[in-house]
């Protein structure tokens, strides 16, 4: 039995090594200067540059217009992450509330229209989506960045499922007490959905923060770049460079992953609940 345990730990440690090492190496490398990295390869110790690469990435104006730096990208990533998560939760909660708690003729039609969106990921309809957003004049705006991403029903389904599991007696009791639709929603349904909202918020924040293809297309103005979008920029500079800025590239990678990773680790139990129960 003891032997078994040891082999289990070896397998798990190997797994942890595979998952963690790339990021640890990326961090260690980011603390050295580019020339050292170029000469001797990725680094396995903390370097003499400390966090100066992070300072450079965050504060040095880059790009063609010299308007963008890491702080701006960080702000844009925050706007995208929060805007997407909050927008999605508000809109999908309202829709799910209507579908579950109201009797009206177009209910099943609306349900199926929303359901349709599960059939086509954004990547598949990317070109026409881009053209429509362009026609609407929403290129290089935060709404153009966020709103089209909300057009998928995952959140609505998640809340629908949860509302259906709420006991009917709650609504009966509320109605006897004279609560109308708004009062029931605000005073009863929202408070009992708190954990669910937190869980889905984490999933959606990470999803929004990590968007790449859509921001790449929709933001050509460097003032709207997100951190994840900024990676493409780094690569384009890279192709011609003599000695690529390895340290800054790694610093950008670490910065781009830090907020969502922290959210997932700190709110681990909510995150897992959201992931497993929303069935994606």
């Amino acid at each position, binding site marked *: 039995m003891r032997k078994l345990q040891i082999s289990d730990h070896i397998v798990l440690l190997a797994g942890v090594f595979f998952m963690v090492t790339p990021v640890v190496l990326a961090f260690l490398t980011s603390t050295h200067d580019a020339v050292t990295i170029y000469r001797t390869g990725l680094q396995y110790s903390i370097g003499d540059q400390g966090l100066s690469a992070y300072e450079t990435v965050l504060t040095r104006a880059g790009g063609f217009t010299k308007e963008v730096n890491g702080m701006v990208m960080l702000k844009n990533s925050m706007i995208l992450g929060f805007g997407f998560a909050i927008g999605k939760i508000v809109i999908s909660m309202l829709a799910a509330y209507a579908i579950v708690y109201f009797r009206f003729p177009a209910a099943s039609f609306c349900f199926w229209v929303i359901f349709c969106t599960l059939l086509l990921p954004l990547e598949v309809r990317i070109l026409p989506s881009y053209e429509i957003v362009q026609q609407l004049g929403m290129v290089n705006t935060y709404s153009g960045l966020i709103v089209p991403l*909300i057009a998928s029903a995952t959140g609505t389904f998640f809340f629908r499922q949860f509302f259906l599991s709420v006991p009917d007696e709650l609504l009966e009791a509320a*109605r006897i007490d004279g609560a109308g639709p708004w009062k029931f929603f605000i005073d009863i349904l929202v408070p009992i959905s708190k954990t669910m909202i937190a869980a889905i918020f984490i999933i959606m924040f990470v999803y929004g923060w990590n968007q790449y293809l859509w921001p790449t297309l929709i933001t050509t103005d460097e003032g709207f770049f997100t951190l994840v979008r900024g990676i493409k920029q780094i690569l384009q500079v890279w192709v011609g460079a003599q000695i690529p800025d390895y340290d800054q590239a790694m610093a950008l990678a670490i910065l781009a992953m830090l907020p969502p990773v922290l959210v997932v680790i700190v709110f681990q139990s909510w995150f897992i609940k959201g992931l497993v129960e929303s069935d994606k």
Partner: protein
Amino acid sequence: MWRACPGNRKARYVVRGEAMKKVQFNTPAIPYLLLFPQIAIVAVFFLWPAAEAVRSSFYLEDPFGFGSTFVGFDNFIDTVTSTNYARVARFTGVFTFLVTVLSLGAALLLAVKADKVLRGASSYKTLLMWVYAVAPPVAGLIGILLFDQHVGPIVKFVAMFGWHMQIGVDYYDTAFAMIIASVWKQIPVNFIFFLSGLQGISKSVQEAASIDCRSGFRRFWTVTFPLLAPTGFFLLIINITYALFDTFGIIDVVLKTEPGNNPVTLVYKVYLDGFRGNDLGGSSAQSVLLMLVVFILTIIQFRLIERRVHYT
């Protein structure tokens, strides 16, 4: 005893599409008001572009913007018969298969072990799942550093065995790096689902099994594995969808946005032909073909979710 399966009631609702509350509000205008934002966004940013994709797949767009001509199924025929498309489709198939099998296999192994150990279980869990939050292009960026010609430790390591890895130059080496990065990124999701599936198996079933069957290996295949099968089927679809669509960021970064002669997936080709090649009709036709694939996958997924609910 009546409390034994609290999930049942929920399950029934989930399964039936037409699930309804016994008590509902009857106010005529409010539901439309509530649904308006969602329906409006879906109509403008989903239905319209989807219809547009289908429409333009039947047209040949003039590259200089002088209108378009209806060409029937020509775009589809051109797409399906082109040798390049066949090559990309073949690569996509192999890529999807390998990413799915490797990430599911590794995650299952890790989940089984993490479920078994007593010491440090929660640390292992955290250390194995946090990569979920890393964006695919960030995974790609770290990937190309590890596989870099000058600085990458993996390149140095395999060189000792005579493998001179050249990412971005050699077709297979590039594919190898893409697959490793994609698997790395996908293991956490699979791990979380498998682990929660394993923890859902009741202790009494496990105890009964350990009395009947002493071999841990056989016990796994005859008792645990079948009980995990619904989770596995569900994850299979999730993983195929991931490998087809969500790996875009990884592929784009590994190729340093210059594909050249390197392997790309079908979704990447839609993007390349549409935005770089300005072949709107061809790109749309490819989109429509992919839509069919997703459509089929989604139907299978919903069938499976139904079954999954019955098991639990």
